[in-house]
Each structure stands twice: as C-alpha cells, then as structure tokens.
C-alpha cells in the first residue's frame, strides 16, 4: 500500500494510534495517510493541515481549535453522494480507510475564497448585520436577500438523495446512569456497580479515560493501566454496561435521557446487519453527571488564525496521537493547566518560545517549568496573533496593554480556564451557580434528588479529588436506591497544589477578537449590541447570534457573558446565563425516524381478502392505515375508464366490494338501546330485532361526527358500524360517555372490526348471486329479508351475518363472516357470480355509486356541517335527548343562511366538475367574488351520463333548477352549473326495495 509521509507525526508515543495500521484518506481531493485510532483532525494535523474551513460570516480561514465534540471550526462534509453529511466535526470523526472529506463554506477553494472580501467590509457586518441590512425594502426579502444569505451563510450542503443508512431505536432502564467515562465517571460507575445496582456508563468517545494524561498516576500505576483495570472490573459486573461512542444529548422529564450511539460511523461502510446509528432512550432512576469541563479560548486579536488551539487540545494531540501541532508552540494561559501542556511539549521535544501567564505571581508549577528551562513570563497577555492561513508569530503585551515582544511560533496553545460542561444538566432548566474562585458556572444540583454530579463538571478539577468525588457519588447514589455498599476505598492519585485562576476575558486590542468562532461573533459585536440596547443576555444572543450555532456556544458562552458583564459594569451572575436545549450535539434526522420511515412509517392493515384483490390486479389506496382496492383495471384500461366501467356494471349486473374496513362495534346490555339513543340523533328503542337503521351522530358542539348503520341482533345486542376513518374515534367517544358520564347505564361494547370481514354485493343480480352462494342456508326472498333486514345464519359451519343495506341505491346485501373466512367467502361469491357477470369494484366506483344516490360520506361530513345542512334534519328526534342537541340549537347552527346539501351538474354536459370548487354569483358586477357554497364530491356518472356532484349552497334545495357559476381557482376554471336534487338515481328507491 502506498502511504504518504506524515510530516508532523512524532516518532514515538501516541496511546490512541496504531502505527502498524496506516489508513489512507482524502481531504478536498488530496490524499493523505493517517493511522488507525486517529481522528480526522489528528490525521490532518499529522499532515501539517491546520486550515480546514472558512468561517460563517467573514469566510476567514479557520483551523482546528479543540480535540473534542465542542469543536466550533473544523466542520467538514463527510463521505460522498447520498451518504454525504455536512457539518461533521473533524475532531470526532474516527479515521477509516478511504475516508473522503471536504471543507465547507469556501468558494472556490479553501486557500482562496472569494467571499472572504466580506471581512474587508466587516464594519457593515457587525452585530445585527442581518437585521439591519435586510430590513428594507421588504419586497426584496425572497428574491434577493434570502438567496444571498443562503449562499453566503450556508455551512455544509446536505445530501439531496434519500438517506441510505439504517437507524435503530433501543430502550433501557437502569438504576444509575453515569454520563462521562473520565476519571470521575469511572470511579462513580465502579462504586455504584459494585453494589449490584444496574449501571450504564455512557462515554461519547471510543475510549474511556477522558482527559487523563499519559503522565497521570492512579493507585500507583500509569492512568492508562488504571483505566484498563477499571474497565475489566466493570465488565465483570453482571448489571453494569459500558457504552462507548454513546453520546447522551437530551435530558427530559422523569430522568429520561436520549443518546445517540455511533455504530457504523467509524467504519468505511456499515455492515449490512448493523444500523449506522442507534437512538437510545434511557430511563434512569438516578443520574450522575461526570461530563467534565471545557477549556475556554482566550479572546485576543486574530485569535482565530489556524494554529491557535486550546492548550488541552495541543496536549491531547501530542500525548494521544503523537502529533506535533507545531514546531514552535507558544502558550498563553491564566491558570495552571496549560503548564501540563508545556511539559508534554517539552517531553516530545517541541520548542516552546514562551509561556505567557496572565497571573501576576509565580505558582509552584511555574517554578517547576522555569527549572525545566521553559521561558515563563508572568503578567503577560497575548496581544495579537500574526499570519494569514497559519500562525507565524504572537505579539505579547503587559497587563496595561503595553507591547512587550513578538515571538515567532507556528502554533499557540491557549487556556482561559475551565467551564464545567453543564449543557446537558441545564436542559432541565436549572440555572447554574457562579463560583468566583474558579471563574465558572457550576450546576445547582442539590435542588433535585435524582441528579448527582461528580468531578470537573461541578468544579472539582484536581485528579485525586475527582476520583474521590466520583467514588463517593456512586456509593451514595447506590445507597439511596437501597443497594448494599461494602466499604471500599476510592482510587487515589498524588495530590497537586493548584494555583488560582486569574480573570482574562478580553485581552486589550482593537482588532477582531473572536468569542464565538462558529458564528463569527467578536468581542466588539458584544459591545456594539450592548450599546444598541440589547443588554439582556437573551437579546444579546439573538442579536449577535452568540452561542446559536450547532455547538450551542460551548466554548464561547462564558467569555461572551463576561465581556457583556464588563461592558455593563455588572458581575457575571448578574448578567445571567442562557439555556441549553436538546440535542446537545447535532443528531441525524434519520436517527429520530429510526425504522419508522417509508412503508414502516405506520403499520399497514390489510383485509382478509387482500390476496384476492391482488389476484384481480387491484390498484390499492391508503385509507388511514388500511390498504383498500381503489379500482381493478382491465388490460390497458386507465383509472377513469376502470372506475366508469365498474360503476356502470354494478348497476347493470352485480358487483362485489370489500367493506371490511368499516368500523364495527358490538354493544350488549339492558341499556344498549338507551345508550344508542343518546349517541345518535335518531331513536333506537323501537328498532325490531333483525332490523338495521341508518344513524347519524353529532359531536357535543352540534356538528355531525359520524354515520353508519346499526343493527339489532338481539333485544340487548346491537352491531354498530362506523366510517372507516372514524372507527377509532367513535369507539373512544363511546368509551368516554359510558365510563365517565353515564356510568349507571348497563352497556358494554367492544370493537369487532377485525373479527368480522365484510363484502357488499350490489346490483340487480345480487340476490341471484347470493342464492347461488348460500344455497338455502338463508332465505333471501324480499319477504324473509326485506330492505334493512338482518339475519344471522350458519354457513359452512361458521356464523355469517347478512344485512340488506345499500350504499349504492341498488338491490344490495352486506355479508359478514369471521375474519379468517374472508378469502373463502370472496372466492365463492366470485365463482357463483361468474354466471351473472359479477365484477369486483373498488372505493372509487363505490364513491361514484353513492354520489349518484345522493348519500353523504367523508367529504360531506367535514366536521363543520350539521344534520340539517346535510338534508337529514328530519332524523333529529324530538322525543329524546342526545349528544350535541343543546349546542346544535345555537343561533349560528340553525341559521337559514347556512349552505345545505344539493346536487349539481354542468350546464354543458361535456364539462368536468371539480371537488372543492366554489359556487359564486355576480362576478362581473362586483369585482369581489362571494362564495355561496362549495362542491364537496364529484363523479363522472355512467348512470347520468355526465359529471355530477354533491355540494353545499346557501338556500339549498330552494335553488334547485338555478344556474350558478362554479369557480375552481386552482385551475382558474369557471363553468356554469345547475343546482339539482342530490339523488340522481332512482329517487323513489324502487331498486333497493326490489
């Protein structure tokens, strides 16, 4: 394998990398080599690449700032084609063979970017730039401003193809969730786990150990060895799970957490049997946050030039990845931690031209550094970084702003102190508390019993103290949950004397000193916003966009608050904090969707006869979750022709239609009839056994809710049917009244939709067909089974029910058999019907037939209409009271001006009607179009010979014979139509009674 030399890789060391396993990758089309265990960031640095992106607003060159998921700068487009993912952090991407990444936000190339002229005009692009510039004229918004903003401000480009990856969801229940696998988290998991509690230890990165460094000693051994031993000890505990590449990003009520597990992201391709990512939902009885602390950058002029890096990141790249971030690394700090970076650099033989310490007095560590030959300068601040695409020098100043010296360097390690990582904890709304001694916000956890914090995430920075803190917290938490805890001693490390931290919020200067790197917010922007009156921290955030990028300002928030506080002469806690929101890190939308996408978005319900429909070549339509046959095209037939043929042949011969999806509810009890009386607008007490009746029910507000036939199968036994769409809603509605309002009624009911399947057999030959099917098992004569008659009978050893009801207006029967017999019934009907030229018909023809007959359906029951609007006012019983009656009497519900149901047909018979068209008059006169009503359903009617429709119009049937205009603005069609009776076919009902 041809590998490239890695010019900045150190010859020895690097606990995370495997030198025996080189990996090739490409960045912006150029190939490089790294090692297994590298991140994309460490591999780029090993190849001397600091410049990895352009900034959001000014398109300034940007380099790698961190070694962790807080990275604001090094955002790249990862992978290609449909797999392309924008805004991935180079610092968290694990290198794999063949990795392809591209820089973002540059045009045409990273080194030469046209839009970087933005920074020449930067006085026009300060805080509130978008608000000010794009205010006026408002008509410019869409055509001009939005396009410019999208072009100029877009970070990465999302793939435009469907996401080809797979995602899974998983759920966990645990006693103790420990978030963070550093020293404190490991100690907490150990003591909690040993008690027998069910523990999940969640670590975002692939490895445990957090910020432990190569030189740390725990229990007398190198820290890495202690981590290995602890891992082994935890793995031996049966109830403890260690989860790596497992980032907890959301904290919700009742101690519920969401985490994303990167299962395949570190691999060149996710194996077929694995998802790319898993979204985990964790319900934890108690949680211990051990999320560590984040180092703050130092705010000085040109602090964003590639090569300026957090001191902890410099140390991490040297220690873990054996990468020299520079040949000559200057250090600027206000605290002790950066000294450990200096020692690591020294160890690796990297030159340190200066260590500028903002503190006035030496500390124990600075003395040690001096003894090691490091040039330590106290009371010294960075003034300005020099260079364009890479740092070339650093100017230093004294605390009074006087220039001190200029040192040559190609990397600057900066440390502005540490902020506990409170982003996850504060999602629950707890405001953190300011601690002046460590210059940091720490979480306020004593208010909530179920939360514990350990280690640096609540301001404990010393390693020995972290271990003790974590161990105690794990033990205490397990004890509180009732687990027995053996007395054990905590792991220990040599204690170190810690020097104090010195405030260093804005080093004096006049240039661009960046606070929020991802959103390009400078210290000046914060001052400007404050001068313009955006003094509240929430306003500042929105006006300057500080902290509003994908990193939610984790490296910038405290510096920004401090600069605002200084500008206002207030203390930092007086200025306050902003709140973090889930997700704490960007999560792919596909992970939230999981398997529930495409066909798996919701369950698919198929009727018992589905296979029969497929055999007949049915084209299906989704009706809620149900798959229903829409029409059955014959060879070469289009949809319109098939529907027309089906509707015609039903009226000529006989047709069969699957109506299994209608809701079916069986009711029992002494008071079942009374219950129905209250549900429906019409009466049920006098319905004889063996008869069905059409019923209409209202909502409590008086509008029509649902309709269907209900049959009396026994004195105290009814079978109700509902529309397909409302089956679940009607059942819930009934349960509410039976359980909570009329608890004294003796009525019980349950859904039988999936127990009984049903077909409708309709047409003049329906009786002959069914006679041939049932062969005397049931008497189908008009006398024995008249219109609206119902019979239960035994057919082929099973119970069958037959209902003489008709939606089409033809002689029709509905037959129900137990679900499992559906296919057999369908086939027997088709066999017997062959002699009568039977055809199957779908929902479209069913719709045509019911419109021809003037029957209302879903489009007419639109939630706004009343029974009277539908022409069914005569069904309103005056002898009883029922749901919706009181409010149906309101003035607006009974107004004569309400549109009511009519039929409609075009004056010119060839013209097509459109559902949704509005009836309008006098267009020419007024110039203003006034709606008289609308067309709700239309059909190309074989029986009438032209398009027909149902609709609602003011004046209703009094307009029959009138001609009005139907306007369909979607296609700008206006046609003349005639209002007519809604019953187009067999108005006297002779066919269905035949």
């Amino acid at each position: 394998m041809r590998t490239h030399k890695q010019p900045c890789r150190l010859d020895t060391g690097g606990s995370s990398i495997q030198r025996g396993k080189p990996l090739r990758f490409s960045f912006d089309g150029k190939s490089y080599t790294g090692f297994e265990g590298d991140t994309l960031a460490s591999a780029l640095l090993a190849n001397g690449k600091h410049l990895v992106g352009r900034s959001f607003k000014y398109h300034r060159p940007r380099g790698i700032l961190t070694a962790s998921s807080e990275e604001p700068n090094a955002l790249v487009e990862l992978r290609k084609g449909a797999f392309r993912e924008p805004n991935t952090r180079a610092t968290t991407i694990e290198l794999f063979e063949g990795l392809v990444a591209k820089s973002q936000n540059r045009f045409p190339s990273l080194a030469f970017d046209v839009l970087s002229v933005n920074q020449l005009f930067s006085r026009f692009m300060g805080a509130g730039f978008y608000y000010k510039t794009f205010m006026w004229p408002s008509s410019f918004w869409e055509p001009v401003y939005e396009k410019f903003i999208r072009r100029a401000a877009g970070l990465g480009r999302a793939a435009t193809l469907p996401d080809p990856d797979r995602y899974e969801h998983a759920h966990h229940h645990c006693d103790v969730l420990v978030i963070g696998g550093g020293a404190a988290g490991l100690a907490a998991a150990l003591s909690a786990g040993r008690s027998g509690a069910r523990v999940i230890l969640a670590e975002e990165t692939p490895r445990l150990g957090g910020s432990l460094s190569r030189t740390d000693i725990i229990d007398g051994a190198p820290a890495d060895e202690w981590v290995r031993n602890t891992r082994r000890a935890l793995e031996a505990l049966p109830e403890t799970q260690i989860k790596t590449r497992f980032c907890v990003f959301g904290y919700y009520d009742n101690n519920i957490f969401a985490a994303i597990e990167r299962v395949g992201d570190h691999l060149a391709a996710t194996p077929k049997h694995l998802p790319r990512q898993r979204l985990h939902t964790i319900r934890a009885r108690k949680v211990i946050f051990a999320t560590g602390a984040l180092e703050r950058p130092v705010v000085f002029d040109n602090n964003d030039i590639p090569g300026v890096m957090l001191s902890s990141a410099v140390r991490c790249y040297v220690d873990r990845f054996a990468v020299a971030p520079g040949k000559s690394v200057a250090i600027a700090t206000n605290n002790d931690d950066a000294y450990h970076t200096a020692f690591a650099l020294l160890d690796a033989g990297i030159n340190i031209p200066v260590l500028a310490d903002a503190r006035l007095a030496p500390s124990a560590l600075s003395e040690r550094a001096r003894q090691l030959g490091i040039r330590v300068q106290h009371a010294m601040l960075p003034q300005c970084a020099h260079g364009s695409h890479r740092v070339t020098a650093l100017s230093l100043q004294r605390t009074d702003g006087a220039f001190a010296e200029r040192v040559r360097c190609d990397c600057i390690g900066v440390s502005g102190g540490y902020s506990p990582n409170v982003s996850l904890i504060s999602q629950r709304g707890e405001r953190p508390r300011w601690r002046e001694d460590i210059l940091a916000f720490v979480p306020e956890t004593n208010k909530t019993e179920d939360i514990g914090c350990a280690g640096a995430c609540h301001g404990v920075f010393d390693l020995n103290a972290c271990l003790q803190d974590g161990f105690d917290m794990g033990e205490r938490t397990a004890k509180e949950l009732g687990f027995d805890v053996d007395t054990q001693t905590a792991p220990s490390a040599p204690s170190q004397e810690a020097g104090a931290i010195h405030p260093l919020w804005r080093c004096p200067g006049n240039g661009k000193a960046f606070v929020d790197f991802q959103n390009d917010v400078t210290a000046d922007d914060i001052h400007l916003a404050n001068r313009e009156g955006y003094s509240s921290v929430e306003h500042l955030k929105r006006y300057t966009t500080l902290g509003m990028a994908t990193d939610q300002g984790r490296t910038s928030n405290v510096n920004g608050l401090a600069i605002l506080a200084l500008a206002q002469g207030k203390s930092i806690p007086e200025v306050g904090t902003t709140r973090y929101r889930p997700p704490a890190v960007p999560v792919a939308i596909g992970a939230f969707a999981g398997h529930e996408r495409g066909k798996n978005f919701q369950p698919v319900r198929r009727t018992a006869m589905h296979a029969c429909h497929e055999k007949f070549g049915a084209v299906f339509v989704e009706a809620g979750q149900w798959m229903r046959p829409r029409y059955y095209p014959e060879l070469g037939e289009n949809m319109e022709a098939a529907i027309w043929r089906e509707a015609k042949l039903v009226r000529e011969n006989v047709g069969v239609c699957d109506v299994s999806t209608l809701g079916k509810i069986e009711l029992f009890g002494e008071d079942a009839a009374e219950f129905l009386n209250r549900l429906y607008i019409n009466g049920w007490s006098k319905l004889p056994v063996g008869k069905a009746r059409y019923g209409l029910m209202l909502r409590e507000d008086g509008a029509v809710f649902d309709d269907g036939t209900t049959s009396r199968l026994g004195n105290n036994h009814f079978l109700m049917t509902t529309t397909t769409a409302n089956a679940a809603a009607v059942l819930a509605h009934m349960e509410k009244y039976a359980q909570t309002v009329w608890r004294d009624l003796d009525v019980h009911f349950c859904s039988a939709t999936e127990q009984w399947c049903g077909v409708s057999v309709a047409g003049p030959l329906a009786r002959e067909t069914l006679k041939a099917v049932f062969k005397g098992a049931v008497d189908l004569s008009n006398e024995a089974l008249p219109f609206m008659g119902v019979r239960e009978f035994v057919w082929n050893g099973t119970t069958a029910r037959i209902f003489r009801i008709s939606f089409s207006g033809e002689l029709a029967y509905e037959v129900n058999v137990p679900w499992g017999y559906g296919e057999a019934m369908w086939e027997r009907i088709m066999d017997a019907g062959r002699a009568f030229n039977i055809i199957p018909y779908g929902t479209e023809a069913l719709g045509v037939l019911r419109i021809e007959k003037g029957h209302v359906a879903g489009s007419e029951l639109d939630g706004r209409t009343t029974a009277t609007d539908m022409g069914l006012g005569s069904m309103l019983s005056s002898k009883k009271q029922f749901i919706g009656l009181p409010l149906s009497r309101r003035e607006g519900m009974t107004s004569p001006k309400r549109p009511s149901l009519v039929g409609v047909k075009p004056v010119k018979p060839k013209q097509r009607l459109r559902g949704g068209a509005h009836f309008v008059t006098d267009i020419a006169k007024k110039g203003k179009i006034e709606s008289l009503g609308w067309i709700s359903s239309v059909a190309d009617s074989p029986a009438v010979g032209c398009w027909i429709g149902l609709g609602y119009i003011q004046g209703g049937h009094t307009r029959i014979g009138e001609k009005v205009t139907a306007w369909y603005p979607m296609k700008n069609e206006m046609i003349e139509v005639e209002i007519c009776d809604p019953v187009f076919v067999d108005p006297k009902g002779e066919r269905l009674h035949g």
Partner: protein
Amino acid sequence: MHRIKCPFCGERDESEYIYQGDASVSHPPFDASIGDFYRYVYVRDNPKGWHREWWHHVGGCRMWVQVARNTLTHEIYATAPAGGVLDFPEDA
C-alpha cells in the same frame, strides 16, 4: 415521559395513553342551558399547579383514568378510575 399507574393494569408508559383533557368539568344534564353546555365544551381553566385530568388507556385496557398531575413540575401524584376518589397532595 410520564409513567402513569392505570388502576386496572398497573404502571404503564405514557405512550400507551391519550391525554383527554380536563377532568374537573362534568357533563351537564341534558336539560341544562345552552350556556352550561357552552362552558362544558369550550371553557377551561389553565391552572399552574395541580390539575385533574383524563388519560385514556387506549394501548391497554381502554379505561378512562383520572390523573392528578402538576402542570408546572409534571409530577403525577395519584390516579383513580372514573368515578373513584382522586387524591391530591395536601397543599393542592
């Protein structure tokens, strides 16, 4: 996400339930005024603190369950069957 103790099924996840609104309003008798029905259908308090609610156990036994929930803290104090006595904390 809540866990709600169904009086019939035991503790179950919130996802098994559908929230069905204020349980402190009751259906007026049919001879009540239009005004009474108007208030029953449309008028609700928006309390900060303890609230009597209906949760319908649709993914379980399909019973309507009374729930004492704190709208501020999301704490659920007690549940009861329809028609049963629902306990609230003393300070409610």
